[in-house]
């Protein structure tokens, strides 16, 4: 025992004082408040090449239009509910405040860029909201999902991925989180639209001028333009794909057989999903990684590969290692977008744009009956003998004598 003076009590007091001092000396320093990250892959992309001055202006504009993670703000033209966003935003307080950081941020990142701390270890990667592309929805190709689509995703989770089900959260908590996802998505899309305006050089001359900060430009040109985020999100409700009545022989063996014919012939599914539907056909890149893949191709084709390679290396720092889109193994009985027949209908009719799964809704010669037959085939596949599902064999023990 350390002895500071002869009397034990003295030693105790001095020892305790030193311990307390060491405990509190580092201080109660709190980390600085989190900030949104810029989309550097698009800003520094040689196709766009936004100048540093304008990059800073974009950041300032976004700060004014959307606020910070702790203190969000939305313009009324976005159609978002700021009260709900405030419940989801900000630091965590118990289980009622800061819901996004409580449940979502470690995968989806503070900016909703799908690059949270756990993202690197997940396959598939968490969703990057910034393009406004979501996979499992009821609207066509590049349209954003509806509010109900996002609520469904939160409630059911996405089976086969790291996205859990939040069914046990209350309805108001789910609404707040969905609103925040839409907020992050619109913010990301606004950033991209500003970069687009920079490239177009229509509303202003980027070589000589700064970004206009008038309401006219920001609201009417950027937010409410033909491809503006507010326009797109407002239109989703009216663009929901109508689900027609299934044919009368739906859910019969004949329907499954008809679906098999569609799968192997006019559906064109074998190319990616493979001849045995194991997902071992061709792979393509997914659209979130399109920029990096295109740059890689440019590097391969260019006369100065080394110089461009440096640039793509710099871009890759702000992105997760790009992966290809893997076609689904249809024999596992895992339906990421949901196993209800109408959900499968949506996937087939509209396709999954960011994964480059084509929709067969508009294929010439394809009827909606064909698509329903295909749905039947897909629902039946995991139960076919070749799909290796074993029923509960060990639970059906032979009868034994009663003691």
């Amino acid at each position, binding site marked *: 025992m350390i002895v500071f003076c002869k009397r034990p009590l003295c030693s105790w007091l001095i020892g305790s004082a030193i311990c307390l001092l060491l405990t509190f000396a580092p201080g109660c320093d709190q980390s600085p408040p989190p900030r949104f990250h810029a989309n550097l892959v698009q800003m520094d992309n040689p196709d766009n090449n936004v100048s540093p001055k304008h990059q800073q202006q974009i950041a300032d504009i976004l700060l004014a239009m959307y606020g910070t993670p702790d203190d969000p703000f939305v313009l009324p033209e976005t159609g978002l509910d700021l009260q709900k966003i405030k419940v989801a935003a900000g630091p965590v307080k118990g289980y009622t405040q800061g819901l996004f950081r409580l449940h979502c941020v*470690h995968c989806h990142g503070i900016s909703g860029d799908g690059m949270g701390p*756990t993202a690197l270890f997940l396959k598939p990667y968490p969703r990057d909201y910034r393009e406004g592309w979501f996979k499992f929805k009821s609207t066509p190709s590049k349209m954003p999902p509806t509010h109900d689509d996002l609520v469904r995703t939160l409630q059911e989770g996405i089976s086969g991925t790291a996205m859990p089900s939040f069914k*046990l959260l209350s309805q108001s908590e789910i609404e707040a989180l969905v609103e925040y996802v839409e907020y992050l998505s619109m913010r990301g899309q606004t950033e991209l639209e500003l970069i687009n305006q920079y490239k177009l050089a229509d509303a202003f001359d980027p070589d000589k001028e700064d970004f206009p900060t008038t309401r006219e430009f920001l609201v009417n040109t950027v937010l409410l333009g033909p491809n503006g985020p507010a326009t797109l999100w407002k239109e989703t409700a009216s663009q*929901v794909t109508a*689900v027609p009545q299934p044919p009368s022989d739906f859910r019969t063996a004949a329907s499954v057989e008809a679906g098999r014919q569609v799968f192997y012939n006019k559906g064109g599914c074998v190319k990616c999903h493979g001849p045995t539907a194991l997902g071992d056909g061709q792979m393509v890149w997914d659209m979130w990684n399109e920029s990096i893949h295109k740059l890689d191709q440019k590097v391969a084709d260019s006369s100065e590969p080394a110089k461009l390679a440096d640039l793509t290396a710099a871009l890759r720092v702000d992105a997760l290692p790009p992966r290809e889109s893997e076609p689904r193994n249809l024999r596992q009985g895992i339906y990421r977008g949901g196993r209800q027949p109408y959900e499968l*209908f949506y996937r087939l009719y509209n396709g999954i744009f960011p994964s480059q799964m084509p929709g067969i809704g508009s294929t010439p010669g394809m009827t909606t009956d064909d698509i329903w037959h295909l749905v039947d085939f897909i*629902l039946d596949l995991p139960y076919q003998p070749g799909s290796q599902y074993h029923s509960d064999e060990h*639970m059906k023990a032979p009868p034994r004598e*009663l003691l």
Partner: protein
Amino acid sequence: MGKFWSILFLCVTFFGVGTFMFGAATGVWLPENVGSETAYSIDHLFKFILVLTGIVFIGTEVTLFYFLWRYDGKTNQQPAKFSHGSHTLEICWTIVPAATLLFIAIYQLNTWAAAKMRTPMANGYDMAPTVEVTGRQFEWRLRYPGDDGILGTKDDLFDVNDLHVPVGEEVLVSLKSMDVLHGFYLPNLRVKQDAVPGMKIPVWFRPMKEGEYDIPCSQLCGWGHYKMTGRLVVESRAAYEKYLADLKVRQNSVVPPWAAQQAAESIPAQGTPEQTASAESGATSAGTSSNNTTSSLANTNR
């Protein structure tokens, strides 16, 4: 200084016993037990062992206190006595604990067997599983056998985190894991079983009281382990059947839920409130009847 340490050690006894007395007085105790005989006998064993170890605890702590107090270096000036040990004493303090442990081991055999070894039977055969629970990071995925009562067939029903069981009946869970170790823990039924990847483990219980209870995960499974909780709903047989029927309708749904709503909302509000009401109810019944037609088609054409 020496006596101070002996008092400090005595405080451990007081605080240890005091905590349990405080718990008993304020009702801070085990979770509500809604299980059957096995669950109650687990509680009984817990209390028995608590009392037994409590007695031993108090005995050893008081003895320790006594020796610290009596032979404190400052006040006790007698020289130390050296002994060659006492054979009798050593035999005593080996045999008595060994006998106690042996007693406990035999005393609990029946409860362990009832909870873990005697799989439930129905009509002379092994009971078929009521539900297959698959632990996954970080949720409980459920699979009910559907109308044919056999797991693994086309009519199986799927859900997440929301386990419904009928009250008063034996429930057999077939426990699996999709990725890593999880712990299927029903605190209110005194059931705890690790879900081991690659194994199908039977877990059985009989809930005796309706209500909603937790299914926390009791085996560290990753970053989300702390919030991996499902919900166990114990309800009457009729409500349970209704839940499964609703699940079946939802799972076979060819009409998205918002489309049914839209059909109801798209009738413009015209004329008298009576007319509007009848128009709306007409639209709704049209919506649901088309739903019924589809699902009845689905049933008959299986």
